[in-house]
């Protein structure tokens, strides 16, 4: 497969291919727009979003294609918070040159919100910072209030 997006079950191309850029695949259904916004992709870039596509592995999936932009380690880390099973393909001249599985980093800064509504980071303009206590299940400890935010209650900064 190249940078072209296919429906897994039928291997039928349903979204046009990209020549140079990044494909973020295997996102949980309903997360693609949120992740694209989080990564700041909704500005000048050409972005194609696929939602609720069939997936042999996960049943349904979302995906994002972005033309002309090569995502790196910081973006992979952010994606991992909402989509721990995501894969990222870097496409150059219509061929996949790099395939990566994302991973939650040891420290997460400025991306997520503390689930403790009384935390100073939710009350004043304080950049959030978390220490990853567990990756599976995802548990992140707020550097400020010590609250353990679980993966299912995780919200990203808008």
């Amino acid at each position, binding site marked *: 497969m190249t940078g072209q997006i296919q429906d897994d079950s039928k291997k039928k191309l349903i979204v046009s291919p990209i020549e140079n850029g990044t494909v973020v695949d295997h996102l949980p259904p309903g997360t693609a727009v949120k992740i694209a916004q989080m990564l700041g992709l909704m500005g000048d870039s050409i972005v194609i979003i696929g939602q609720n596509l069939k997936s042999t592995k996960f049943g349904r999936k979302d995906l994002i294609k972005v033309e002309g932009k090569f995502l790196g380690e910081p973006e992979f880390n952010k994606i991992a918070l909402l989509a721990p099973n995501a894969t990222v393909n870097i496409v150059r001249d219509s061929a996949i040159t790099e395939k990566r599985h994302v991973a939650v980093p040891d420290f997460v800064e400025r991306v997520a919100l*503390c689930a*403790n509504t*009384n*935390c*100073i*980071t939710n*009350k*004043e*303009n*304080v950049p959030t910072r978390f220490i990853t206590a567990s990756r599976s299940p995802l548990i992140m*400890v*707020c*550097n*400020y*209030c*010590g*609250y*353990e935010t679980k993966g299912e209650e995780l919200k990203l900064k808008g």
Partner: protein
Amino acid sequence: MNFTNRDVVSIKDFSKQDLEKVFSIAGGFAKNGYDRKLLKGKRVGLLFYEPSTRTRMSFDTAAQTIGADTIWFAGPEGTSVMKGETLKDTIETVANYVDAIILRHPFDGSARWAAEITTRRTRRGAPKVPIISGGDGKNEHPTQTMLDLYSMLITQGRIESLNVALIGDLKYGRTVHSLSYALSMYNARLSFVAPDMLQIPSHITSFLDRCGIKHSEHSRIEDVIADADIVYMTRIQKERFPDENEYNKVKGLYRISKSMLSAAKPTMRLMHPLPRVDEITLDADDDPRAYYFQQAGNGVPIRAALLALVMGACE
């Protein structure tokens, strides 16, 4: 670990050796008296955004007793906080006037944020101003825990392996949170007595599990009082309930009276961070097991020791 310029934000930042150093200096003050020139020429700022009697007055007493001047505000009224000033700007400003800041603030994590602000100032060439938390929201109250542990040491001759029952508002009670963290270093057996809606938060029981500390949850005081070395009573904190109807469901649910103390060991000590409302009846005050007023008194030597340490006057 060296104490000079150290922030006191979470009890989890302190080892047993650190705490023993604080207890040792506090014990020296209590036994031999205070050196009234220890902090001469130093100034301590007390920034209390929330009401306080014991924490503020014992810190003020402690600072002045060992020679420091104090400046303070009690409640944001009369300050620029009422005009919308952020915690950051207030800390940045007051740090110019003082050598240490005692902070009580309603938001969880505010003490850690304040400590970060005074550390950042040092990159601009300013001296570090240590932040000592006097309680941050429902999060922690580390200096209360230090005096609680010191009170246990005085009354039981040890802190190690005590059977401690914590009763009341365990969800919002920051003193209970800090004390639970601290007792995990001392192989304590913890019994949490509270209505379901006010039980100890899961992130604290997870922490205790990771430390291998035995703990259990109960709904009746009678189930735990006979075996306890320490009964730690707390007030249901009306001010932290988002809904007053929820508060009304649980207020007055737990009460210890003199007659209930007959089931306890003679060596048991009844502690309370205070203020109390009605959770300990007045007739218990004269029971030899009642220790809460002496406990509050222990705040002065403990806080004097801590100030002397973080301001570099003691090794």
